[in-house]
């Protein structure tokens, strides 16, 4: 239980906080992006911003797989699910993501059969048990879930299943980071690299960030002290004028990633020329599609998919939140029209979404800050 005790240790957090503060150059503002929604969750849950000096700001990144799915893809999925011979399967997180005419639950109320599954392998089992039904798995996620979909397709191919396919929406994190670095809206000083994605892709794919953009990256774990330690490592690099990729989460993340997983992805999938991200628009080579050699398992080839593009609702500012330009509470509909129960935007849907995390944990701490500033 060493780690648990350590991470719970507020003393250690305060000591790190003091070391971080001592590295700040007077008058300089620091902005670090935590790419992963899991990190956002930890930051709000444990009020980590309270441990940082005021001139260090944490900015939330696009690493919430549900949040970046554009409405058009939800509509396309529902279009497939409306076929009478189709049973669609989806992770639970995806069920409440709004399309232009409602989410998967709304669609089921109108007659589709979209079922929640834990794993793509559960979808495969449903396909085996229902040979007369076309089972379509709504595949979403970054590189943490992409290998699972690839392995499932390989298994389906091995078994010669003819009624299983995937509607592939897997996205890759590197082009999104690059899009943010190229965006004029935001000037960042460094990145907390995603922990679980890196168990698959390793640390090498981030090397372009110090090389081409002169920004440090520290791949970080999910415990509160992991995040503070990673911020400390970023500050040390900046102070020493270094700019490298470091792996704070080496107890889980191998530098080269999971080679078997990368091989499975490469066997089944290839990069799309471009893909639409909610809020970020079209990004080149930022998502995966099923390769020609596995075309039989590609729902986009098996069924006619309209490929509609739907603009985000006007009131919703998820795009700005995903790019880190706006904090969740700065969105016009945050906590009023848009709540976890009735989300307008995707960032409020998933527990990893910045808005949902802030709604659930953050507002109390912010409230305290406001009260403190009013009374002083």
């Amino acid at each position, binding site marked *: *239980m*060493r*780690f*648990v005790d350590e*991470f*719970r240790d507020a003393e250690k957090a305060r000591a790190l906080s003091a070391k971080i503060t001592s590295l700040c150059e007077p008058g300089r503002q620091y902005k670090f992006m935590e790419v992963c*929604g*899991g990190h956002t*969750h*930890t930051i709000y*849950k444990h009020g980590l911003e309270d441990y940082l000096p005021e001139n260090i700001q944490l900015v939330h990144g696009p690493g*919430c*797989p*549900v949040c970046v799915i554009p409405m058009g893809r939800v509509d396309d999925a529902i279009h497939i699910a409306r076929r009478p011979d189709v049973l669609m399967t989806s*992770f*639970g*997180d*995806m069920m409440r993501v709004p399309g232009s005419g409602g989410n998967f639950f709304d669609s089921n109320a109108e007659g589709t059969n979209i079922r*929640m*599954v*834990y*794993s*793509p*392998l*559960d979808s495969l*089992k449903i396909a085996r048990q229902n040979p007369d039904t076309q089972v379509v798995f709504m595949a*979403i*996620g*970054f590189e*943490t*879930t992409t*290998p*699972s979909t690839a*392995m499932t397709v390989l298994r389906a191919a091995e078994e010669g299943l003819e009624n299983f396919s995937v509607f592939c929406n897997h996205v890759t994190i590197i082009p999104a980071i690059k899009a943010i670095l190229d965006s004029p809206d935001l000037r960042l000083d460094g990145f907390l690299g995603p922990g*679980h994605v890196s*168990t*698959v892709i390793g640390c090498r794919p981030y090397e372009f960030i110090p090389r081409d953009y002169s920004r440090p990256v520290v791949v970080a774990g*999910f*415990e509160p002290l992991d995040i503070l330690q990673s911020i400390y490592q970023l500050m040390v690099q900046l102070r020493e004028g270094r700019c490298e990729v470091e792996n704070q989460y080496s*107890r*889980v*993340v*191998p530098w080269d990633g*999971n*080679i*078997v*997983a990368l091989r*499975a992805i490469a066997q089944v999938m290839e990069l799309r020329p471009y893909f639409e991200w909610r809020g970020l628009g079209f990004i080149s080579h930022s998502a995966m599609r099923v390769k020609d050699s596995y075309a039989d398992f590609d729902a986009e080839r098996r069924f006619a998919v309209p490929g509609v593009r739907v603009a985000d609702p006007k009131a919703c500012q998820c795009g700005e939140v995903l790019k880190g330009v706006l904090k969740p509470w700065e969105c016009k509909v945050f906590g009023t029209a848009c709540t976890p129960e009735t989300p307008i935007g995707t960032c409020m849907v*998933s*527990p*990893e979404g910045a808005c949902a995390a802030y709604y659930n944990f953050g507002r109390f701490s912010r409230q305290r800050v406001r009260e403190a500033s009013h009374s002083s």
Partner: protein
Amino acid sequence: MCLGIPGEVIEILEDRPDLARVSVSGVKRAINIGLLTDDPPVPGDWILIHVGFALSKIDEQEAAAALEFLESIGKAYEDELAALQESRID
């Protein structure tokens, strides 16, 4: 969905070397270990699981820390466990 959840390997299924019976917070389910063929887990090892697949081996201390983190986030982990409970991978 994106949460990595720790589980302890109970046994490798005899007829299916790519599947292991794994205990996650007391829930015992089959988990695919086909992504760990470079360093296959054995009973007693801890693994980090994403949507039915083990993505990495971890030590017991890391497993305890990860579990502590997951339990602290509440509903998202409860939903993930409930989904795992429904899972019947084979």
